[in-house]
């Protein structure tokens, strides 16, 4: 097992594992966000639990951070290595004839997602960390009630931010349209038992980002 990350297949396997992990996280994130549409109270309770439970905060959160960072760094490393594998590019290359735009531009969709994530962190994660661990307010309360739902609504007031989120999720969808099945292919799950996987992957790649967009729009218009 040692040195597996030194091999091409090892690296793509690691890339796929981090992707699968992030896709599960995404599902969970979506589920919580969805609650905000149906019940502010439930959303507040779950948010408070997630934000204060030590297992989530001190075990899961670092793992997630590591997963995100690993996926990005490895993505860049692979991109650089792959560019080195061809010194002279073609004068004419018809990539569209044999592959999807998404599959050929993962690095760019990934970069946009990275930019989006930075904004997202600035919007939610840093204020959250600031409140909880720097100011030291672990109560989750503001003016006598849970602050989470309220903060969420506030964020989606400016139209520019909503637009930015929508664009970010469109790129996420493009990334997932290739990434979902690519991850399964990388871990070797492409054979007669996985026939339904491709359709499921497509559905996941479109419906989840679309859901995030709908939620953002919902809060923008229901404020």
């Amino acid at each position, binding site marked *: 097992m040692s040195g597996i990350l030194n091999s091409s297949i090892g690296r*793509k396997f690691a890339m796929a594992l981090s992707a699968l992990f992030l896709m599960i996280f995404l599902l969970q994130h979506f589920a919580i966000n969805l609650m905000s549409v149906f019940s502010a109270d439930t959303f507040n309770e779950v948010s408070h639990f997630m934000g204060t439970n030590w297992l989530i905060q001190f075990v899961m959160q670092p793992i997630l951070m590591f997963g995100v960072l690993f996926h990005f760094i490895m993505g860049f490393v692979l991109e650089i*290595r792959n560019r*080195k*594998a061809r010194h*002279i590019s*073609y004068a004419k290359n018809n990539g569209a*004839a044999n592959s999807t735009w998404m599959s*050929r531009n*993962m690095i760019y969709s990934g970069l946009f997602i990275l930019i989006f994530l930075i904004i997202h962190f600035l919007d939610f994660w840093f204020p959250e960390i600031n409140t909880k661990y720097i100011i030291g307010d672990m109560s989750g309360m503001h003016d006598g009630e849970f602050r989470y739902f309220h903060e969420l609504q506030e964020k989606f007031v400016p139209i520019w931010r909503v637009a930015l989120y929508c664009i970010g999720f469109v790129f996420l969808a493009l990334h997932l349209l290739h990434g979902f099945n690519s991850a399964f292919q990388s871990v*070797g799950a492409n054979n007669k038992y996985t026939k339904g996987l491709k359709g499921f992957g497509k559905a996941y790649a479109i419906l989840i980002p679309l859901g995030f967009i709908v939620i953002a729009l919902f809060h923008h218009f229901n404020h």
Partner: protein
Amino acid sequence: MNLTLKIWRQKNAKDKGGLVDYKVNDVSPDMSFLEMLDVLNEDLINKDEEPVAFDHDCREGICGMCSLYINGEAHGPDRGVTTCQLHMRMFKDGDTIYIEPFRAAAFPVIKDLIVDRTSFDRIQHAGGFISVNTSGNTIDANAIPINKHDADTAFDAATCIGCGACVASCKNSSAMLFVSAKVSQFALLPQGKIEATDRVLNMVKQMDDEGFGNCTNTGACEVECPKGISLENIARMNREYLKASLKG
């Protein structure tokens, strides 16, 4: 029909090279692409110019010698064929056709459109075989029945002609389809299972050492492969590799 060709000319491995324009006239749609180049070369020699060097041999789509990146695709726009089986009826009168060598760091150009694909051979030296000596005393061929489905799948993988279209088409110049075809062929047969661990580890290591890129599953290789080698082979190789890595 009359065509404009933009052909990569490069005197030798050290030369910088570049695209040069040529005109060919009265091309018959029944010609193969290489026969069209034959006509061009005959013309060039008669004009005291240097003919275009390109690899070719069997001209029936099986030896894997011909290559060429034609209008942005390995072996040209047709599917399931090599360049020697690509016919001019795929093009229209007045077309401009780009003809470039297969590009990859692991396939250095020798001259014009000819590249060095011995990196593929070296990958095979690393493990593309079953270690059995010639004796005439191996067990009877029917002593080990093999499930027809496995035998057919192994055959499908084994039809790879080693042309390198997969590498040329891959945006990462990855050789995964080529290597996985051999690994799959043997992984599917009982005779090949005995050395499966060493085979996949050694072949993948050699593949990496040769400077091929990493697979990102774009699937371009499968589409451009003249023999239709399936991406399932790459998935199988990934499984074989992980299994082998865990075993050590």
